[in-house]
């Protein structure tokens, strides 16, 4: 019943939006036919005036006259292709990686893998000329062939962006620039008519007031409200001619004279006085009318959209393309000039239709960091949008979680969500979404090394309702606000128990006895004094629980400021990012964690080849936990990046250099401090030898922590030589011999060979293999390394 209700709600909302859109289209169609008739009349006049011309010329002229009429009356068939299904793209990719790690130093629990295999099939199909992108991707499992359901790896998505792009290019190709501009001007006309209606309302009001008071009409020319008129002085002369001004001044004197020594009653009975008064008030009313006309005219002419549309008077392809890049403009041109069937029109407004395995990323307070297997759709027209999502959770990452049990238990079983919001014609971006999460995982796969394990979950339904509001302020500022509230608690079991235990329970989905089950974020992005600015505030209540984003931290408050500015003709760039976070873990504030982060980056571009960037970053941590002394930690990094070029013997040598020092001091749980300092230096120099590239990379890392192979002090030198091999396949190869010294572990000599080939323009193959041999072995782990990485990509179409 509950599911049925939700489905019905979604369906009805969908139809409301679609019908609204259909009505809009019908109105536009009827106005289109009207304008077509007037064009026909004008063109017919043109034809008549050329009767004296030769017959051939007349025929040509008639043809030209009728062509735009056909565009307007029938609409151009945008799609030539009548096939119901077309395949526009098909490609496959296969990847295989092998790494010999018998020690488990690198792959840990996954050390027994003999290699990883993944494949991808990309397929773009046009259904009724609407593009759908299908992807089949497997490789999200340690051994996905065996236990992961096939459906988890497929997706079939409508490519709305591609569809608009296709329509745009078809319009550019098939609709004449004049016709496109007709649409633009019809929009201007619509806007003007709106203003004229408002003006007419005010004028009528003033007229009726005047007539009511003085029992005489106040005639105003009907074309006075025409805001397209340019000669305002002529209008003023018509409404307020020079003789009227003189008459007005004379009447004022007359009134003054007539009213002397008379009371109001006498004056009211004096017909001469009343006639003069009516003339005076008539003049004053006319002045007011003229003021309103000029007011609405300037309002119309200063309308940003009108300005933009009128500025697109150039028929250059760039200007037209720019005009059509706005979906609303494209929609207008399609409505006016083109012929699309119902389904094609429907899909024009279908922003999203994703089927199968897809990431869902609306915003932090709604859905993020989630992969859903199911359906996710959103329909948006000019006035409203409606969306829905349904599916099962597919966020499990077996690569990351194999052999481990997740206590980050937000992995819901399935999800149903709805969203309603404003249309693309709205100035504001606003939406309200409600997501319901069902937890019903009874699988307990503890101890498995082949996949992620989960704790069994007490059956429950959680819900999250999120309001999003985005508001542009001028052209350079944008403010967004998201407010979210969560609700839900474990369901009652079906077992019988004592009524006393049940009395205090909260089984209802909408129960809300917890504290602070809300979250909110406020963002400002904009530009002030040529400085890009972002300010954000975020608060997540301690009781807030959004399974749609498992990475939100309950009890955390955060504020941040980002600044970026360019100086010296864009050659000097300065960026700053700072944030403050405080997380309170319990309702009594017994456990509090605070961090303050700062990052400053300054880049200077000397010229196209030489530049330098200095980055400083520091984060301070503090914990204040019950029963423990407050503890402090710090992490800091100072890094210099540079690129420079010099010339030796006519050869240009490009260099990239990085010098970085990072320090981390973190208190340990049972006393003491984890400390790690590393200084990294890398320099890569490259030069062209004929058509081939020679590069030398030197890397040295000095670390205070040599107990771990991948963080030990080390020195390496590699010389890579890239060259092409003549013959079929355009084979490119890179051979890189190297010397590696890993302090406390081994000294190695190695070679890495990369090959890439392109066969007949359809197939690309990349192969990389490497071998490192320990010539001095202190610890056997990873002393000898063999690794292979291959990738083949074939484009069928």
């Amino acid at each position, binding site marked *: 019943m509950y599911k049925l209700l939700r489905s019905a709600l979604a369906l009805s909302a969908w139809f409301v939006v679609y019908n609204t859109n259909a009505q809009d289209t019908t109105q536009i169609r009827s106005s289109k036919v009207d304008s077509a008739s007037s064009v026909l009349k004008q063109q017919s006049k043109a034809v008549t005036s050329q009767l004296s011309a030769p017959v051939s010329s007349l025929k040509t002229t008639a043809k030209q006259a009728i062509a735009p009429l056909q565009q307007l009356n029938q609409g151009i068939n945008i799609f030539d292709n009548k096939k119901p299904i077309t395949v526009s793209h098909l490609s496959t990719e296969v990847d295989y990686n092998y790494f010999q790690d018998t020690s*488990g130093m690198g792959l840990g629990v996954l050390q027994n893998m003999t290699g990883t295999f993944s494949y991808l099939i990309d397929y773009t199909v046009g259904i009724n000329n609407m593009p759908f992108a299908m992807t089949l991707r497997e490789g999200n499992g340690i051994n996905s062939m065996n236990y992961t359901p096939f459906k988890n790896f497929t997706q079939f998505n409508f490519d709305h962006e591609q569809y608009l792009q296709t329509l745009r290019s078809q319009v550019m190709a098939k609709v004449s620039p004049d016709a496109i501009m007709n649409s633009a001007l019809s929009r201007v006309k619509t806007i003007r008519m709106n203003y004229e209606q408002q003006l007419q309302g005010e004028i009528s009001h003033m007229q009726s007031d005047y007539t009511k008071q003085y029992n005489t009409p106040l005639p105003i020319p009907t074309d006075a409200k025409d805001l397209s008129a340019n000669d305002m002085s002529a209008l003023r002369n018509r409404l307020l001619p020079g003789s009227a001004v003189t008459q007005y001044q004379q009447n004022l004197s007359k009134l003054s004279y007539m009213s002397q020594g008379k009371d109001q009653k006498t004056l009211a009975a004096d017909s001469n006085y009343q006639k003069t008064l009516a003339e005076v008030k008539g003049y004053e009313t006319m002045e007011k009318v003229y003021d309103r006309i000029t007011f609405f005219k300037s309002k119309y002419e200063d309308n940003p959209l009108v300005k933009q549309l009128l500025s697109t008077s150039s028929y250059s392809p760039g200007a037209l393309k720019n005009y059509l890049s706005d979906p609303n403009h494209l929609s207008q041109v399609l409505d006016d000039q083109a012929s699309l069937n119902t389904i094609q029109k429907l899909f024009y407004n279908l922003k999203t239709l994703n089927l199968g395995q897809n990431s869902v990323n609306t915003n932090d307070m709604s859905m993020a960091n989630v992969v859903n297997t199911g359906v996710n759709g959103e329909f948006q027209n000019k006035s409203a949008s409606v969306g829905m999502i349904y599916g099962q959770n597919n966020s499990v990452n077996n690569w990351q979680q194999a052999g481990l049990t997740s206590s980050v238990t937000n992995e819901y079983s399935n999800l149903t969500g709805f969203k309603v919001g404003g249309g693309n014609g709205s100035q504001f971006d606003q939406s309200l979404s409600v997501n319901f999460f069902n937890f019903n995982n009874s699988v307990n796969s503890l101890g498995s090394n082949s996949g992620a394990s989960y704790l069994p979950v007490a059956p429950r339904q959680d819900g999250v309702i999120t309001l999003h509001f985005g508001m542009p302020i001028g052209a350079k500022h944008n403010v967004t606000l998201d407010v979210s509230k969560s609700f839900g608690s474990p369901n009652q079991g079906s077992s019988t128990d*004592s009524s006393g235990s049940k009395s205090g329970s909260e089984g209802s989905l909408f*129960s809300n006895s917890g504290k602070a089950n809300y979250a909110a974020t406020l963002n400002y992005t904009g530009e002030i004094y040529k400085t890009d600015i972002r300010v954000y505030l975020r608060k997540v209540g301690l009781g807030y629980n959004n399974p749609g984003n498992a990475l939100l931290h309950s009890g955390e408050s955060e504020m941040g400021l980002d600044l970026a500015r360019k100086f010296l*003709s864009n050659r000097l760039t300065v960026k700053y990012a700072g944030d403050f976070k405080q997380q309170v873990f*319990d309702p009594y504030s017994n456990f509090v964690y605070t961090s303050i982060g700062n990052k400053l980056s300054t880049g200077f571009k000397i010229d196209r080849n030489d530049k330098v960037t200095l980055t400083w970053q520091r984060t301070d941590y503090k914990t204040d936990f019950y029963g423990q002394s407050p503890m402090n930690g710090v992490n800091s990094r100072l890094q210099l990046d540079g690129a420079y070029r010099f010339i030796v013997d006519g050869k240009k040598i490009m260099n990239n250099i990085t010098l970085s020092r990072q320090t981390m001091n973190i*208190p340990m749980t049972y006393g003491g401090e984890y400390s790690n300092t590393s200084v990294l230096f890398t320099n890569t120099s490259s030069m062209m030898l004929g058509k081939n590239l020679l590069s030398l990379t030197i890397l040295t890392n000095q670390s205070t922590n040599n107990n771990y192979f991948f963080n030990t002090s080390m020195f390496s030198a590699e010389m890579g030589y890239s060259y092409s091999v003549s013959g079929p396949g355009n084979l490119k190869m890179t051979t890189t011999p190297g010397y590696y010294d890993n302090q406390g572990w081994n000294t190695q000599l190695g070679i890495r060979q990369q090959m890439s080939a392109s066969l007949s323009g359809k197939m690309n193959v990349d192969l990389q293999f490497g071998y490192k041999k320990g010539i001095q072995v202190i610890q056997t782990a990873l002393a000898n390394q063999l690794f292979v990485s291959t990738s083949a990509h074939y484009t069928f179409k």
Partner: protein
Amino acid sequence: MLRYLIITLLTVSMLGKVSGQGNFVFIGEVYGRTLDGLANFQIQNFSGQAHQGKVYLTVKENISKNVVVNMVSPLITLSQGNNQFPVSAYTGSSFSFPNNAMAAIVSQTRNFPPGEYTYTFRFQPNDKSDDFESVVDANIQPLVPINLISPADQDKICEKRPPLSWQPPVPYPPSMRFRLQLTEKKRGSDIENLLMSAPLVLLDNIPSTTVSYPSYAPDLQEGHTYVWQVIAYQNGIILSKSDIWEFTVQCSDSAKANPNDSYRELRELVNGNYYYATTYLKFSYQNHYNIRKLDYEIYETEGGSKKIKNLPDIPLNPGHNKIDIDLSQLDLEEGKHYIIKVYPFNEPAVIVRFVYQENSNQ
């Protein structure tokens, strides 16, 4: 890992208050953090015979002295010896939460806030035989989430084998280990691509908070974007996941997408019309002489007609030239009008107005 588990199980079972009929084995520090973790206990039946009954569990927080949750299982059958509490029994259990803030937090989030907890398990047989209970204490410490440090989110870096570092939970438990995954982010996909794709770099069992880029992994490629995430675990339990961050390898200035616009003829436009120049100003130019460099200037149209400096040199060939002037390197503001003055040799200057636009694809 198994050895640790057995030792811990034995230790905890020793700590529990043992009664004659049976005993509960539960690792509070590991499984006592979440409501779902409460299902992971064993029941040892010493009575020598099977019993049917219910399990009653009460969790109390000792600092606030609040009972946080009561759980009552459906009827279960306890065999002789060790019994794992059945999953079906857990999912069919009844939960009740008293009226206090701690209980409300657990009810809403399924996570126990940090504190000192006492877990009291009691088995109540159906057959009137003696019940038995075990009490387990656990100190639940807060889990400060791990945060990635470098490469920073959305950063552009030059190194093709960059070191990766992150901040561990504070304080840092010595036995904590990390697993790192780095995956290429395909064009047009979201950061959640990491959850759906095979890794390019996978490192497990990391005892450090900084790793050098593994020597066995292929170089990262110029112009490609990568996503990465680190998880922290202890005793086989995932305790924290970092955010998913992305970075792009980009050594040189980005190869700007040269818009596929046509090369317009350079001529003065009438009626105040103007060109749109998206990143590049493109026009065709007829060089009737052997001039090697385009002579041109660009001015602002507003604010005093300031001359734009540092214009790039445009080489010319005799005859027809297709000119691309990269405007992105100049101090131009998007949406503003500018004037380009081109001085052909021995001919009057051509003045064209244009509106600068940045490429939205970048």
